[in-house]
């Protein structure tokens, strides 16, 4: 469907106002409509964003002056070599991808039943309330929520000033302490709404009549879920996973707050940039850029972009 067809039949009197004349020009030259709408956003993104990324990638090929710690104009592959061949750094990347995937899975496990309940089982009048309840924590402030989890995970010891450590330690007597587990839980908490919402929206678009039809044809709930629901929500899950995966991959603040001594690729980039060693930091950023591009391409194959 193209608006060209729709507008082709516009008559208009001979003596037209400027609005009409403009309208007619657009009708006669349909490409004008495309150009006038697509130019601004694409130009902005290309210039501001892709330009900045390109500049960054370019600096990865420069050598750092030892004394002043500023990039020189000398070409070198040393930074890329360090970033891509040092085993400790490669492990950091692997760890980061692992954490990001774990967070995505955890978010999915929690979000799927919740979204299903809210869209299909809950009473219609309660639905909006539930959705608002899921969205509201997003407004509470990312940093503050992180520190709240810190207060919850705090390990106590018999020498604690306040008695018994964090919330979990005081109430149920156990805490995972600071580390990868705490990090995965905290990150999953931060991004959970981003996974619930697309799945809810996807399920919302699924008419209940389809589910009834499936039941009428003899399908038990699990079979219905597998054959009817899942294909519909795979794009939604993929869309949600873009957020949970990428937001977790590059996070460097949460590891410092609840991760104990764990470091992810974001920490490495931040630490190197602030060293200051901008060329090496730029080389490190190539890792998440490559990973995310691969991830986005695979998610687009699952039609995630239509379901964001």
């Amino acid at each position, binding site marked *: 469907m193209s608006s060209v067809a729709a507008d082709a039949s516009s008559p*208009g009197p001979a003596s037209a106002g400027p*609005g009409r004349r403009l309208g007619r020009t657009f009708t006669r030259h349909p490409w004008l409509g495309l150009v006038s709408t697509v130019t601004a956003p694409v130009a902005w993104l290309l210039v501001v964003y892709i330009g900045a*990324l390109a500049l960054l990638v370019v600096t990865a090929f420069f050598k750092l002056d030892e004394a002043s710690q500023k990039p020189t104009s000398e070409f070198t592959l040393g930074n890329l070599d360090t970033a891509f061949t040092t085993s400790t750094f490669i492990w950091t990347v692997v760890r980061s991808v692992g954490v990001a995937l774990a967070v995505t899975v955890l978010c999915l496990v929690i979000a799927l039943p919740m979204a299903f309940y809210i869209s299909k089982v809950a009473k219609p009048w309660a639905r909006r309330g539930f959705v608002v309840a899921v969205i509201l924590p997003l407004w509470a402030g990312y940093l503050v929520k992180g520190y709240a989890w810190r207060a919850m995970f705090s390990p106590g010891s018999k020498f604690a000033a306040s008695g018994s450590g964090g919330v979990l330690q005081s109430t149920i007597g156990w805490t995972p302490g600071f580390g990868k587990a705490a990090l995965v839980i905290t990150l999953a908490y931060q991004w959970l709404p981003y996974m619930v919402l697309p799945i809810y929206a996807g399920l919302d678009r699924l008419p209940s009549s389809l589910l009834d039809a499936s039941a009428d044809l003899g399908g038990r709930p699990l079979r219905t879920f597998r054959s009817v629901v899942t294909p519909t929500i795979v794009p939604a899950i993929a869309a949600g996973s873009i957020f949970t995966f990428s937001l977790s991959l590059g996070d460097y603040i949460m590891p410092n707050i609840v991760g104990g001594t764990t470091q992810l690729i974001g920490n490495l980039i931040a630490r190197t940039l602030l060293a200051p060693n901008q060329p090496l930091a730029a080389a490190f950023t190539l890792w998440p850029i490559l990973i*995310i591009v691969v991830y986005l391409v695979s998610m687009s194959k699952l039609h995630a972009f239509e379901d964001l």
Partner: protein
Amino acid sequence: MNLSPIAQWALRIFTWLGLAFLYLPLVVVVILSFNSATSLSWPPRGFTLDWWSKAWEADGPREAFITSIKVAAVATAIALVLGTLAAFALQRYRFFGKTSISFLLILPIALPGIVTAVALQNSFSRRIDLGIFDFQVGFGFHSVVIAHATFCVVIAYNNVVARLRRMSPNLLEASADLGAGGVQTFRLVTFPLIRSALLAGGILAFALSFDEIVVTTFTSGPGVETLPQWILNNLTRPNNVPLVTVVATVVMLLSIPLAWLAQRLSDDARASYL
């Protein structure tokens, strides 16, 4: 859908547990705002209203709050314009490069914040020489706005494009049949229908910009301090850490009506299958 009552109850309980999971840390934050200790430790050492009175008197959080609002407002406005244009372009026309553009739109949000932050900081600090003239973006209010607008575009785009997809082409044909020109059709037919999507997208973009910390830290200039920056600065300052919990509680309360409004608008957007 006919699920057994057990299944329904299981889902109900699971959902409520999920909500409890979402709200437990927020409850901790509120409780800690009354804690008499100067750090975020648990259990609370004592009850005090000191932090609330301090927050009331302090200029820092208030100014940071206003700065955040200003940044978010301008960035959202730009993002709405750019996002709507992109939505119309991608929804109405068929052309090569469509997938690339939606890829381009999501990239600022998909790439880790630190990458975006480093890239933008690097380019803003450079003197760009174009031969005829040279300029430097520099750091200040404008640099934060540019950065925020860039990753908020996709939020506006999503909402508008979702609404446009549901808008039947029959409407536009009817409008043309009745004699309306292109601009008139937009003004009287299209715009009112996407208005709710614009508002919903605007509120979500506003929320994203308001809470953003990583890119903001690297792209702001001297004298510009958004609320998340203020929070970050005060979490590292002696004796002021609980002040942050107070500020967080206030922001949470203020955002309840906004979140409700956003959801109401996107529901309306989704509901009409005209």
